[in-house]
C-alpha cells in the first residue's frame, strides 16, 4: 500500500495537489487519506480472524477512499460530486471527525457543523426544540445564547407546532428543515452539507441557498455534496470528482462537473450496450474515460464524448448574410450550422444543440427528436448538415454552445459525438433589462378615468 501511495504521488503530484499559491490559509487539509473496510463473508469469519493465533486473514479489503489529497482554502465553497458509492459520504464523515481514516490525515481549522446524509444527529425521541438545544450544547453554545437564537431557527425551519413534537413523528422534509436551520445557526466556521437539501421542497431549497450565499459572503467555508451538477456549478467555485474512492479531477467546478456528466453518459452508454447484448465483454470501459474513441477536444474548454461512430466536423454560427460570427446582436436572427459525418449506419440519428451561460445554467436546448423533425437513416460514410435558426434574444453576456449527435435505439439514446462548450459567443445590445432571456414583452399603460 505504501508503495502504491508513493507511485501516485510521483506521477500525479502536479495534477492532484490542487494548491492555491497565494490564497488564504487552508481551512481543511486532507493528505494521503485512505479508508479501507474489512469485508467478511459471514459474521463468524470476523470472530475466526479475531481468534486465529496465526493471524490468518478472513476478510477482503474494500477501499472506500484511496489516497485523497485536498486543500480547501478558507472562505470558499467546495463541491464534491460522484456516483453512489464513490466515497463522498465517507470523505465527509472523516473530515467531520466521525470516522477514522485508515491512513493519512486530516487537518481542520475551525468549528464544523455538519448535515451528514439525511439530517444531523437528532435524537428521535426528543422534540424538535430539545434537539435544537442539544445541538447547541454539542457545539458549545450556552443555553442562554441558544434561547436567543431559537426564534430564528424555528422561523427558518417553519414546521409550526411540530417543533414541540418528537422528531420521530417528522416527515423527512421536516427533519431536514430543522436540521439545516440548526446547523447553519450555530455559527460554524465550516459547514458541511451532504445531499441533504434535495429532500426539502423547492421553496425551502431556495431559502437554504439564500442562507448559504449569506454564509459565503461572511467568508465561511462550505463543503457541499450533491448529485445535481447544476447545484455544484452555481454554488461552488471548486469541486472534486470522486470515483470508486479515487480522485478523478479537482479544480474549477464547471470543468469537474462537465467531466462528471461525460463519465455518466459513457457509463450509461456502456450499460445500454450490455443491455442490447452488443458488446458483452467490455472490461476496459473505464479506460475510455481517458481516451474517448479517438475523439479529440479542440479547445481547452471543450468537453467531448460519445462513441465516436459519428463525428461533428464543422460548426459555426452564421449571421443573416451567411457570414461566420461570434458576436450576436440582440434580437437578430442567426443560424447554428454543423456537419455530421457518420462512420456507421445509424437508423435514427438525433441532432441537437444547447446554449448555456458561462456559469453553466442551461438557457435553451433542443434536438430533432423534440421538435419532431424527421432525419431518416444515415448510411455509413454519409454526411448531414444541420441548421438551427434562432433569434438572439439573450441578455448582453457570453454564452457557450454545445452541439451533439446521438442515436435512438429502442432501449436508450446513445451519444455518438457530443461536443460541450465548443465555442463561446457574445450577445450585444443596448436595451436595458435584467435576466437571461428577452421575453419580448410589450408594455402598455392606460390612464384610468
Amino acid at each position, binding site marked *: 500500500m505504501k508503495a502504491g501511495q508513493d507511485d501516485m504521488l510521483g506521477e500525479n503530484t502536479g495534477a492532484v495537489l490542487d494548491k492555491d499559491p497565494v490564497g488564504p490559509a487552508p481551512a481543511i487539509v486532507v493528505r494521503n487519506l485512505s479508508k479501507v*473496510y474489512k469485508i467478511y463473508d459471514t459474521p463468524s469469519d470476523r470472530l475466526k480472524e479475531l481468534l486465529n493465533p496465526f493471524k490468518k486473514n478472513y476478510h477482503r479489503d474494500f477501499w472506500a477512499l484511496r489516497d485523497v489529497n485536498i486543500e480547501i482554502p478558507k472562505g470558499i465553497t467546495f463541491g464534491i460530486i460522484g456516483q453512489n458509492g464513490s466515497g463522498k459520504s465517507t470523505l465527509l*464523515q472523516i473530515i*467531520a*471527525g*466521525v*470516522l*477514522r481514516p485508515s491512513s493519512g490525515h486530516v487537518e481542520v481549522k475551525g468549528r*464544523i*457543523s*455538519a448535515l*451528514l*446524509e439525511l*439530517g*444531523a*444527529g*437528532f*435524537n*428521535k*425521541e*426528543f422534540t424538535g426544540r*430539545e434537539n435544537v*438545544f*442539544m*445541538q447547541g*450544547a*454539542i*457545539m*458549545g453554545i*450556552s*443555553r442562554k445564547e441558544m434561547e436567543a437564537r431559537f426564534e430564528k431557527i424555528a422561523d427558518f425551519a417553519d414546521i409550526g407546532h411540530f417543533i414541540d413534537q418528537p422528531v420521530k413523528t417528522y416527515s423527512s422534509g421536516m427533519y431536514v428543515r430543522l436540521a439545516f436551520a440548526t446547523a447553519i445557526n450555530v455559527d460554524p466556521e465550516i459547514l*458541511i452539507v451532504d445531499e441533504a437539501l434535495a429532500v426539502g421542497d423547492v421553496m425551502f431549497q431556495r431559502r437554504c441557498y439564500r442562507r448559504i450565499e449569506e454564509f459565503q459572503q461572511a467568508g465561511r467555508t462550505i463543503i457541499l455534496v450533491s448529485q445535481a451538477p447544476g447545484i455544484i456549478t452555481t454554488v461552488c467555485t471548486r469541486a472534486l470528482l470522486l470515483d470508486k474512492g479515487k480522485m478523478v479531477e479537482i479544480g474549477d467546478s464547471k470543468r469537474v462537473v462537465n467531466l462528471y456528466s461525460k463519465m455518466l453518459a459513457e457509463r450509461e452508454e456502456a450499460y445500454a450496450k450490455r443491455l442490447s447484448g452488443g458488446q458483452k465483454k467490455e472490461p476496459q470501459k473505464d479506460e475510455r474515460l481517458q481516451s474517448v474513441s479517438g475523439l479529440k477536444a479542440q479547445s481547452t474548454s471543450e468537453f467531448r464524448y460519445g462513441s465516436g461512430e459519428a463525428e461533428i466536423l464543422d460548426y459555426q454560427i452564421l449571421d443573416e448574410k451567411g457570414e461566420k460570427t461570434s458576436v450576436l446582436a440582440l434580437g437578430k436572427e442567426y443560424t447554428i450550422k454543423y456537419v455530421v459525418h457518420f462512420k456507421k449506419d445509424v437508423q435514427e440519428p438525433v441532432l441537437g444543440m444547447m446554449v448555456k451561460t458561462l456559469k453553466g445554467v442551461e438557457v435553451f436546448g433542443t434536438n430533432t427528436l423534440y421538435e419532431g423533425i424527421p432525419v431518416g437513416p444515415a448510411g455509413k460514410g454519409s454526411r448531414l448538415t444541420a441548421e438551427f435558426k434562432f433569434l438572439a434574444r439573450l441578455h448582453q453576456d457570453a454564452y457557450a454552445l454545445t452541439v451533439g449527435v446521438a442515436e435512438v435505439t429502442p432501449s436508450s439514446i446513445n451519444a455518438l459525438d457530443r461536443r460541450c462548450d465548443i465555442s463561446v459567443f457574445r450577445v450585444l445590445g443596448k436595451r436595458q433589462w435584467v435576466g437571461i432571456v428577452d421575453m419580448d414583452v410589450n408594455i402598455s399603460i392606460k390612464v384610468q378615468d
Partner: protein
Amino acid sequence: MPNLTVMKENLLTFFYFINKLYQDRSILWTMIKRDLRARFIGSFFGFSWSVIDPLTQVLIYGVVFGLFFKSQPDPEFGTNSYILYLVCGILPWQFFAQSVTASTGSIVSNANLVKKAVGFPSEILPVIKVMSNLLSHLIGMLILILIIAIFHGVSFYIPFIFVYMLPTLIFAIGVGWIVAGLNVYLRDVQQVMPLVLMAGFFFTPIFYSPSSVPEPILTVLSLNPMFHAVIGYRYALLTGRILPPGSLAYLLITSFFIFGLGGVFFRKLKPGFAEVL
C-alpha cells in the same frame, strides 16, 4: 521504566476525558432530564416504579428466604427483621445492576447520535443512564430511611450512606463504560450481562449474611467492591457503625480504579464506533 510512561499517558488521557465530561455537563443534564421523563412520564405509576420494583423483589426474597428458609440476619447488623436486612442490601445492588444494564445498550441504541452528530460526546451516554438511576435510588433510599426511622430508629451515622453511594456510582459508571463500549463491537455482551449480574446478585451478601459463607470463599467474594458497599449501606442504615478502614479503602480504591480503567478503555474504543454501528 516504560510502564511508568504508559501509566502517565493513560492518566493524562483520563484527565482530559473527565475534563471533557465536565465541559459537556449541560448536554449531560439535558439528557438526564429527558431520560427521566422517558422512563417515568407516560407510564401510569410514574416515579412510584422506583419503589414498586425493589419492593416486589423484597417481597419475593422475603417470602422465599425469610418464610420458607427461615433465614435470620446476623445480629451484628443490629436488627432481627429479615425484611429490613434484605431491603438495605437490595437497594444499593439494584442501583448498581440497573445502571449497568441500562448502560450496556446505551451506545448502540443511540447510533444516530454517535454516527451523525459531529462532536457528540458518546461517553456521556452510559453516565446518563447511571445518573438517572441514581435519582430512583435516592427516592428509594428516602422512603427506606423513613421506614427505618419508624420501625427501627435512625442513628447519626445515616449520612455515611453517601460514603458508600459515591464509590457505587463511580464503579457503576466505570463498568458502564466498559460494557457499553464492548457491546458496540460484540452484541453478545447484551445477552451476557443479565447472567453476569444475576451471578453478582447471588455472590453479594444481599439475602444472606457474610458470616454464613465459608472462609476461603468469603475472601474471593470480598474481591467484589459491591460486597463492601452493601455491607457499608447496612452499617450506616441499621447499626450506626462504619466499615472497617481496610474494607472502606478497598471499596474506594477498586471503584476509582475501575472508573479510570473504564474511562481509558472507552476512550480507546470510541473512535471505531461510527464504523461498526
